[in-house]
């Protein structure tokens, strides 16, 4: 709470700072890329636009002074997840080029639900956090890698180790699922 009104006096809702302008601009890029991702008819392009969106989110993390998260985002999402998705597209013989049936019939229902959800959530969020500010300028702030690392291995070490077991299980599961069974020994 001590951070909330730290520099509230210097910045108003209608007088954005440079960080805020950058954040909004990058956010628009992220949203645009995400929109293209979910609407494009070219499946491979969708994956590539996803890279843009995820990278933009990494930039947003940096702007929020969460540098460790930002690099993890770049490493894991942009580096591995999207590559995995591209492999998946390739293995399921996704068509290269425009595919007319990329969207299913209930896209209008989906649009309605999504718009309703967006409207509701925006309204609620705007209503709740109309006058809330965060301080994004402390040097060696909580987003610094050293701080994050020490907190992770001091307070969160048990969930961290448990997570490694979960990852191992997921790894084994993925291998078992995608392995080809020998003929005649199906199930």
């Amino acid at each position, binding site marked *: 709470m001590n951070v909330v009104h730290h520099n509230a006096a210097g910045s108003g809702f209608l007088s954005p700072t440079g960080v805020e302008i950058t954040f909004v601009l990058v956010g628009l890029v992220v949203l645009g890329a995400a929109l293209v991702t979910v609407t494009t008819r070219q499946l491979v392009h969708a994956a590539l636009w996803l890279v843009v969106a995820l990278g933009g989110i990494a930039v947003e993390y940096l702007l929020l002074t969460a540098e460790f998260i930002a690099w993890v985002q770049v490493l894991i999402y942009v580096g591995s997840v999207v590559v995995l998705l591209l492999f998946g597209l390739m293995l399921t013989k996704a068509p290269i080029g425009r595919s007319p049936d990329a969207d*299913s019939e*209930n896209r209008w*229902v*989906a649009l*309605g*639900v999504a718009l*309703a*959800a967006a409207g*509701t959530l925006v*309204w*609620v969020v705007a209503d709740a956090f109309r006058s809330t500010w965060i301080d994004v300028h402390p040097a060696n702030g909580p987003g610094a890698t050293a701080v994050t690392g020490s907190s992770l291995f001091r307070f969160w070490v048990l969930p961290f180790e448990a997570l490694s077991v979960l990852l191992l299980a997921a790894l084994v599961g993925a291998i078992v699922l995608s392995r080809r069974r020998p003929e005649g020994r199906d199930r």
Partner: protein
Amino acid sequence: MTLTALAALVPALPFLGAAAGLLLGRRAPGFVRPLAVLPTATSFVLAAIVAARQGTGPATDAAHRLTPTGSVPIDIALHLDGFAVLIALLVGLVATCVQVYSLSYLRDDPRYPSYAAVVSLFTAAMLLVVYTGDLMVLLVGWEVMGICSYFLVGHYWETEAARAASIKAFLVTKLGDVPFLIGVFALAADAGTFRITGILSTASAGGLHHPTVIALLLLAGVAGKSAQFPLHTWLPDAMAGPTPVSALIHAATMVAAGIYLVARLLPVFTASAAALAVLAAMAAVTMIGSGLAALAQDDIKRVLAYSTIGQLGYMAGALAVGNRDAAVFHLLSHGAFKALLFLAAGVVIHAAGTNSLTAMSRMGNLAKRVPDAAWTMGLALAALAAVPPLSGFFSKESVLRAAEHAAQGDTAHVPAAVGWTVLVAGLATAVLTGAYASRLFLLTFLGSGPEAPDHGKQPVPMTAVLWVLAIPTVAFGGLAYRRLPDWFGGAPLGPTLTTGVLGTALALVGALAAYSAWRAVGTTRAAVPLGAVVENADADVEPALVEAEAIATHKEVYGDIAAADDPGDPGRLLLGPLHGAAAHGFRLDAAYGALFVRPVLAATSLVRFLDREVVETWVKGAAGAPNLLGAAVRKAQTGNVQTYLGALLAGAVVLAVLVAVGG
């Protein structure tokens, strides 16, 4: 052994035989025949011993109360007097004869074990009715007889006629039994006991509060059981059963139960002049109507059935004039010669291959094929027509004498009009009896035409039984009429000059009329060949099969179950325009159908309509509404995960909005 123990054994033995027969019938077929004949024969011998030891002495009573049963106690009671022991003797004799006869008659029947067991059970029930001294125990035997009769009449249940007849016999007798049961309860409520001795002492002391109601209720049951008008219609149809069954049930025993009951409870009936009048009217209508109907029947067994109804009418008439000695006397002699008539008819049907008198009248030499049956049947028919000195003459004269006595106003409690009714009806029936007995004999045995088919010699058990029964047919009446009053403790039963001469003369008139009519239409008969004979009936075929086939084919050959369209029938000439009505029992069945059956059927179709159209509509609606709802909900089950998820999230959004707005 004491007299009581012996008497208790008499009904118990056939009962045990029936139980053993039913249990062992399938597993040990070798025991079935001994189990059928021996217990019945033993019980006949025991009944004879009981009769001899009881003799003319005072009535023997023994009772044992198993357990207290409410306000009116029920006892296992025996009551032995002259009536009981003599009727038990008759039942034992006829049952034994029938069992022996059935050995040959149903020798190849696959259902013989159950048949013999049910006959034994029936015999046991009848003996129980005869010996018991308690109305409730009597009722048990009474109802067991009803159900056994149902099974036995429906023995050939493959044929439509037998099925219908068995159900009809059961329903009609039950129709009488319901008021009978109420009457028994009312009687016991008035007398405070079910013991017959107690009831009789109450009745003679004038202790009955509603004698007329009770007597009429009891009469309904008696009319059902003893086939008296208007509940007699089941008896002719019951001839769809095997011949031995007809002989046992519908001639000598079961129908005798009603008469026997009235005889036992006669003081209850004499307490009400109205009941006697009703009984007399019933008897008179039954006698004359059945005599006319018998003259028109084509089926030999239906003739005998109607004659049974008529003779039972004589007994009922004797009871109506307050003379149970005469009634029981006639019951005894009639039981013997009617059983003989039925059994002989079975032999004749076997030999002729048909049960139609029309067909037999066009068959030469039937008498030579079955001489035993011809002789014994002739004797029995003469006894039926009351030709002296056969037993039927003496017993019928005792009835007429009692009626004449009452008509003179000499019998206490009995109005003279009742006596006159019975006397006139009895004399008129004597004419009819003579006529139909002669017609039956002439058509059966004196036919002319192609030779009767040769089925070889009749089985010895069947013919021997005929001669055994011929002995009481001939001699019983003449020997017994002087001694029976000692047994019954009543007035003399011998014939008087007036009624004797009158009755015999009238019977001869009837016989002569039938004979002259028979001669008159002889040429017509020769000119119109009619008749169908069961074809492939060779000597080895079981007699019962021949009869079953004859019953099954009678309708399609002659167009009617009761009558054949035969211009050479003397009955047709004698009856004139009445013939058609008489052949169908004066359309009583049709009247009952219109009065009772059709309204009931209409009511059931109304109920069925209500059930199908109204109730079922609601049921269908109750099922249809959820069905429609289900169809609507089913539309949502597309299997598409995205649709489900879309609906889920939309719902979540709606909930979130509600919470946000409401909160």
